[in-house]
Every structure is written in structure tokens, then in C-alpha cells.
């Protein structure tokens, strides 16, 4: 079995990047993983259609925390249009580990919350 707890995952989980809150976010949205009660708050700032700043906070397993951390790094500087196009497969690629059915919700919590956030901001359809 390929290990999902690879060094980069554990590193992101234990030393998450962009964890915390923004002073004046344009959008702040809560995501939930109902099967385990994990919560995530994702905050974004925009300028001219580009994500200028990002932060997340919450509690979850190593996979959900690492996913939020890795995604947050990817998002800064991205256009909201491109961010809205990110798919589950992109998230799996960013994580770089095999995601089984039982961890899918953990791996995708941050991405789902992002889509909710962009839906709130841009009116784009939620496509996850």
C-alpha cells in the first residue's frame, strides 16, 4: 500500500501554511465534513479577479489539514476564474497521494469550501 502519510503531507498537516484569519477578507465561508464533524473556515481577498490573499482555519485529520494548506499555497495569485475550475483530480494531484473512498471527503473539504466561497463571490456554479 502506498503511504498517504508521506513527509510532505505530515509537514503540511503539522505546519500548515496560511492558517489563521485575514484582517479584511472579501469572503469568509465555513465548510463542514458532516461524516466526521470537521470544520474549515476559508477566507479570501480579491483584487481585479485575482486571489490576493488566503487563509484557512479549522480542525481536521492530517489529510484535510494538508489539503487546505497545499490548496491555499496554490490559490494565492490565481484568478478566481481559474480557481473555480479546479476539480477533484487537481486536488488529488496537488496532494500527491492515493485517496481512497473513505478519505475522499477529507481530501476535498477545502476544495468544496473554495467552490462555495467563489459561488458566493462570483455566482459561479458549484462544480464539485
Amino acid at each position, binding site marked *: *500500500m502506498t503511504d*498517504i*502519510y508521506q*513527509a510532505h503531507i*505530515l*509537514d503540511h498537516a*503539522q*505546519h500548515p501554511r496560511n492558517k489563521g484569519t485575514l484582517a479584511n477578507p472579501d469572503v469568509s465561508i465555513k465548510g463542514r465534513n458532516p*461524516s*466526521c*464533524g*470537521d*470544520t474549515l473556515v476559508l477566507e479570501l481577498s480579491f483584487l481585479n479577479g485575482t486571489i490576493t490573499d488566503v487563509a484557512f482555519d479549522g*480542525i*481536521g*485529520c*492530517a*489529510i484535510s*489539514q494538508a489539503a487546505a494548506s497545499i490548496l491555499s499555497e496554490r490559490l494565492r495569485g490565481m484568478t478566481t476564474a481559474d480557481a473555480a475550475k479546479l476539480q477533484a483530480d487537481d486536488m488529488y494531484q496537488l496532494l500527491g497521494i492515493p485517496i481512497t473512498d*473513505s*478519505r475522499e471527503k*477529507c481530501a476535498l473539504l477545502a476544495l468544496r469550501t473554495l467552490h462555495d466561497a467563489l459561488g458566493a463571490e462570483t455566482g459561479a456554479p458549484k462544480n464539485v
Partner: protein
Amino acid sequence: MDIVAVRKDFPTLEHSIAYLDTTASSLTPLSVIEAMDEYYRTYRASVHRGLYSDAERATRAYEDARAKVATFIGASPTEVVFTAGATASSNMLTYALEHSRQWNEGDEIVTTVMEHHAALIPLQQLAKRQKLALRHVPLGPNNALDYDAAHSLIDARTTVVSVMLASNVLGSIQDVQRIARRAHEVGATVIVDATAAVGHLPVDVRALEADFLFFSGHKMCGPTGIGVLYGKEALLADLEPGFFGGGIVEDVTLTEATWTRGVERFEAGSQNVAGAIGLGAAVEYLTAIGLPEIHEHVRGLTAYAQHALSEVEGVQLFSAPPEHNVGVVSFTLEGVHPHDIAEIAGRNGVAIRAGHHCALPLHHALRVPATARASIYLYNTEEDIDRLVHSVKEVKELFGATTAI
């Protein structure tokens, strides 16, 4: 209790799993599987309607199962309703009570912060629909219920009191009789969620002074999809059905229906005959081994697990003392989310559960977002616990190694 013989009764154990997830669902012994198999193979028929011999035999087996379950909980067969499980029992009971009574705004329901969502949410919804106040007995010292608070919360405005016999997170056994006495002093109806307790402790509905009590078959060696709602005979007699359909009616016109007497009134539609037969076989199986023997075995392993886990630095236990515990050992490990503990244990063939175990308000009261839960039953061994502890140490090493970076 002969543990070697017991383990041979459970075919799932052949693939060397350390099964520590009984509180979610127990394993099934061969005798239960065979009883259901026999029904499907040799006298497969619906109950209470057919006039041919297989249907008569099926009906007898179904009613025998009811009688066995009744004896098992100290009730009479006229007080045992078969349902699809604890959740179905709880929902049906709530609807039945709602249809059967006059509710006044400001009436109160008292329950506890430790309830399972299956018991809590139907009452929340009832309270919303009927504009009742829902009150919760808090935890006292050592995460036991605060009985003094219960005493004062239950007062003249209280109409229903709901309490769980054993906690599916803490393993603790509540003093249901004490709460029931107070409830009856003020004329309230007592509902007991015995799902985590039945099959672990001798449960006697009269000793508990319960008005209604429910549980699932699949946590006590029975099959999935069958459960029980017990109701005191005099109370069932005045209760409207919770579900409507065939099999419960005395007479039906285009606009009206009247109900049969007795428990059939609460068993609308074709029933889970194999499930009931399987549950009856589970009761026989547990009775033959003996609940006191089972509890003693579980008590010993619970003590062993609590001790071994507490030796691991960073482990915090949320588990009642072994003497008053149905074999549930919940814990957290500092710096690691319980899901990651359960995942790594799972790879090592150790089945435990992580999350809030359908008791979110209890986790809020305990001030943890989630716990890992090992639950112990008659087929477990010290080796199962050793494998768990080994996995927890592995998790600690894995996560500890990078913390140092």
C-alpha cells in the same frame, strides 16, 4: 467463558481482524446466521397472513423470537414491538406520542447532553413542532450525569424524560431508575435508549422503571435491520400507531381506519421476519453464554485497555471505570486527529472508529472535536488490545517524527 470456543462462533474473526468496533455494530455468530439461513431456505413466508404451513411456521418463529426478546429484557411479549432498529424505534415512538397526546406550549422535555443523535433529534423536532422546551441534564464530575441537576430540571412542566442507559462514547452506565423515579413523581413518561447496553448488561425494564425502551439487534450479535421498541402494556394500549399501513387495522373505510389491539398495531407493513428470527437466536446465544460472564470478560479487557492506553504519553481517556462500563474506551492522542489514528490502526487490521460517534453535543461538553473509540465485546482478547496499543504508538512515532523538523 471459554474465549477460544466463543471466537470459533464468529466466522469474521477468521481473517485475523482485531475487531474493536462493536459499539458501531457487533459481529454475528454462526447460530444467528444459520437461523436466518434456515428460514430463507426452508420456510420462507410472510407472517400473520398465510394459511399454509410455511406461513404458519414463519409466524410461530417470529412470535417465538418476540417471546425470547421479551424474556431477555424482563417484559411480556405483548410489550415488545419489532422495528427496523433503534433509530426507527425512536422516531416511531416520538410520532406515536405526538399523535396520542395533547401538547401545551411550554411543556418540557428533559434529556441529557450525552444522548445519541437517534434519541436526541426526534425529540428536538417534536419540541419544535409543538413549541415545547427541551432541557438537557449536564455532565457532573467524572463525566457522569449530574443527578442533582436532573432532579431540579425534571419538574411539574416536564412531560417526557429521555435518558440513555449506556453511553456509546464513554461506556458509562447511567442510573436510569433514579431518573425514572423523579420523572414519575411529576407524571412524566420515561424513554430509555438501551442500544449500547443490551447484550452487555442484564436489562430489566421493570427494574429500570422505564415506560419505553429501545435498542438495535445488530449491536448484540443480531442481524442488521431489526430492533425493538418496548412499551409498558398500559401505555401501548393508549398509543396511536407511529406508522400507518397494512396489518395494523381492525376496519378500514375510504376515509377512516381503526387499529388492532396489541403490538401488531405498531408493526405496519410486511415485517423483517428473518431479522426477528436472527434476533431471537442472538438472545439465545447471549443467554447461553451468560450476560454476567460476558460483562466480566469485557470488564477485564476494558481495564486492560484503559491501563495500556494511559501508559502512552499524550493519550487522554474518555472512558468510565471498567465496573460501570459496557466496554467502550474512547481516547484522544495529543497533536493527532482521531481519524489518522483509526486509519493507521485499520491498516494494521485493527478496527476502531473515529469521529463524534453520533454524539456531537457530548463531544462539545467534553471539549474535544472528535475521539477515537475502541469498543470491546465477548470475542475480544488481550491480543486485540495489544495490537491497538501498538498502532497508537506507531501513530505517535509517525506524527512525532515530523514535529521535530
